[in-house]
């Protein structure tokens, strides 16, 4: 099974970088021997959908401003649940990620991942230009890493 972990965010936008930071830490923790692929991504829409083609399982990690349930980290098993929701994967330039994925399912069903999970991280703040993660998010960063590592431990 081919698994891809995608950290989504912007490295120069403070809290928005947390998805990328989680992915980068996981990449180092896994080392080269592990079969899980880890990458980072800025944006969404069709380009994100194109990125995940050909994998069996995909884990997307992104931040949100506020999770409705107040949790720091939430695992979304069914991405349709967050359609129209509040994460950066809804790229406005071309189309939202969910729509893009539906297109790919029709055009290339054999390459569309069977399983997609979204790790939504509650940033509780608006992003500003900075290369540093706000201090209040370091604990959340570690929580998110543990959640993802638990998901891929048997790969």
């Amino acid at each position, binding site marked *: 099974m081919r698994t891809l972990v995608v950290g989504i965010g912007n490295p120069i*936008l403070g809290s928005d970088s947390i998805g990328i930071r989680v992915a980068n830490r996981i990449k180092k923790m896994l080392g080269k021997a592990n079969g899980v692929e880890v990458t980072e*991504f*800025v944006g969404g829409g069709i380009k994100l959908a*194109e990125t995940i083609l050909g994998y069996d399982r995909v884990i997307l990690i992104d931040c949100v401003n506020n999770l409705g349930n107040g949790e720091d980290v939430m695992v979304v098993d069914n991405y349709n649940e967050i359609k129209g929701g509040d994460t950066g994967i809804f*790229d*406005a330039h071309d*189309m939202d990620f969910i*729509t893009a994925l539906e297109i790919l399912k029709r055009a290339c069903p054999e390459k569309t991942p069977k399983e997609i999970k979204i790790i939504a991280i509650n940033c509780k703040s608006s992003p500003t230009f900075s290369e540093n993660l706000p201090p209040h998010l370091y604990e959340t960063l570690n929580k998110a890493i543990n959640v993802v590592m638990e998901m891929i431990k048997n790969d």
Partner: protein
Amino acid sequence: MKVIKIDPITRLEGEARISILLDDNGKVKDAFFQVMEFRGFERFCRGRPVEEMPRIVTRICGVCPWAHHMASGKTVDAVFGREPTETAKKIREIGYCAHMLDSHTVHFYFLAVPDLLVSPDAERGQRNVAYLGKIAPEVVKEILRQRRNITKIETIIGGKSIHPVCNVPGGVSKGLSEEEAKEIEEYAKDTLKFLDIWLEKWEKEILTKYEDLIYSDVYHQETYYMGIVGDGNTLNFYDGDIRVVDQRGKEVFRFKPEDYLNYISERVEEWSYTKFPYLKPIGWKGLVDGPDSGIYRVGPLGRLNVIDKISTEKAQEAYKRYIEAGGKPTHFSMFYHWARIIEMIYSCERILELITDEDITSKDTVNYDGDFVGEGVGVVEAPRGILYHHYKTDEKGLVEMANLIIPTTQNNPSISLEIKKAAQKLISNGEISEGILNRIEMAFRAYDPCLACSTHSLPGGLPLIVTVYDSNGALIKEIRRGGK
């Protein structure tokens, strides 16, 4: 008075709002294109080693990172006083043409085509590429295959398809192998064949079917046009002089990139966070077109209006038919779409010219000689129009000043004017159907505005809102989607 705000921004990068104000008779009194803005990117750059800039600026936007990387790379060349090697220039241009293809395919096939192949009056759910995938899955499959070709070229040249890292002061960090050159050639040939089909579809099918819409005075502005021209006033995305033509196509200004501040001023309006650039020597007369107004347009329409010819065969033939159909200059905003197809054909042909050049696999990819200058201006034609980067550094090469003038910002006055004109012509008696709203959306969608760039905000970071108000200022309609 009624105020109508539309959500045409649902398929655009960044956040914006269109507000349309109706009077007591249901006629459009005024219309505004409003954009929220993050400020501070230029300040964020201060104190950084200038050679880091080409990699930092790609993070401004997930839509046109190559354009920022290229403009920044050229600016850093100038700061270091290094002229890139000929091989480096060719490699950069190949990557850049691939980016033009990447961006134009997203806009043309995912935004414009669904409007025109389905119908501008169709329901929102049917007016998108998802619906196209349902009724013609093989078409969408081929579009996706071609996009994979294009991103592979970007990856070979840039190291990454989305955020390239290839530009270094005086050249590129990596040359091309014979195998890579061959691979790029095959991709470009394949994509060129695909584009031939779509050019024919546009000229023989779409243009005929939507002649009234494309030539409608709803989508028509008589403005100035600005763009880069190569030798002999040819189309050139990477380098050249900057040419401005008037409403009759006559050259009124021609200048070098470093003189841009003598020709461009920026105005601030209290109702928008985005600036309103205009031609300094002409002046600002408000949101009106005509020879007395300094409003100018950039992007595919502007580029094909400032050039005299295209250096590649198929694109030049297509350009001739384009001029015959629209005149020169062409003032019809819907010609932006047609211009994109021609530019995609040019991009493929130009890649094929460059990739088969005998020097393309040379190892001479960086010029290390030059005298440090400490200031530079770099300009390229981004997919949406001319992009200016300007940096000043201290004696250690740390950035003291960074100024960026973004294509969508330059088109902002025209976009605002276009929306107002479209709303005034299409809405009467306060009746607003889905088809009318979409036709107003189409007024600015032609420009493919990248609001993440124009506001210096970042992709996916802002909510998307459309609202409508009545004559008493009461909200009568609001649509809100996406965003973070």
